[in-house]
């Protein structure tokens, strides 16, 4: 009978409350409509910059500048649209680790590409 008094409707209700709170806990931060639109406008502007820069003859720097702009755009998309800026260290860590691994492969491959005779 003491068992019965433990399992009541109140307990079930509390569990649901707990779950409801849990789902909001990790992501209380809401980015507003305005912010998203400003971010979108920035991305469009950067696209225009990319196209414009391609028209200017910068020689071997063209690729570097194009990739730089692309990198800036990616950081904006990852941080705001994909929410990494507002997420816990766990997710920041994954993105950082991913970027680091890609960079390492790229650099090592670069050494190979630029030092071997084709």
């Amino acid at each position: 009978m003491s068992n019965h008094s433990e399992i009541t409707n109140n307990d079930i209700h509390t569990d649901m409350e707990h779950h409801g709170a849990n789902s909001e806990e990790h992501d209380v931060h809401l980015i507003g409509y305005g912010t998203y639109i400003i971010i979108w406008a920035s991305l469009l502007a950067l696209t225009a910059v990319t196209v414009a820069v391609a028209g200017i003859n910068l020689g071997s720097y063209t690729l570097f500048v194009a990739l730089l702009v692309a990198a800036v755009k990616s950081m904006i998309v990852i941080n705001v649209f994909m929410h990494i800026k507002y997420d816990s260290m766990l997710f920041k860590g994954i993105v950082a680790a991913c970027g680091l691994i890609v960079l390492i492969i790229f650099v090592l491959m670069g050494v190979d590409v630029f030092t071997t005779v084709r």
Partner: protein
Amino acid sequence: MSTTTTNIKDINANAHAQEHVHVHRDDEGSKFGMWLFLFTEVLLFGGLFFVYFAYRVWYSQGFHDGAQELNVVLGATNTVILLTSSLTMALSILALRKKNTTLSLIHLGITIACAFGFLINKYFEWGYKIHHGIYPGSEKLLERPEGEILFFGLYYLMTGLHTFHVIVGIIILTTMGVSIIRGTINHDKYIKLENGGLYWHLVDLIWIFLFPLFYLLH
């Protein structure tokens, strides 16, 4: 005293009900799993970008000449389309969290419409190229310098793989839309929509790199 038997039934019923209520839900774990998957996607496309990089260094003239034949306007339009679709994707999630289901579905619909717009552009772009005899293994292409053959091979492979991802994205987002209509994705339980959004943003990210590397090689 006859309540003893009833109590046991009640205990079982309540315990069972409590089990149902106590469904293990781990949104953070869900998102983590999605990010791990995105990591594998980055390695997939990353590998192809590495190939591009090597061949561009070794066949810079061929790459330059090949890029001249790509339509910058179409490429830039596709970039704008995908960037806008990323915006509406984020707005869809925001609207849902603010309990505006209708607006959420509208934004999701625009995202999917943008995806179709991208596909239509790609269809015309590839169609034009193929009509002019430039496609992997074609006679016309094989007559060209090695660098150009490699350029177009990579072009078709990478934009093709990307387009496949766009199509999969349409299927995923449509499925999310159905779930929103049914209510299985709602303002309290929206991790699936968020994860679908993450996938879509990745598709956009890949194009952000594809565009300058293939279309803007002046």
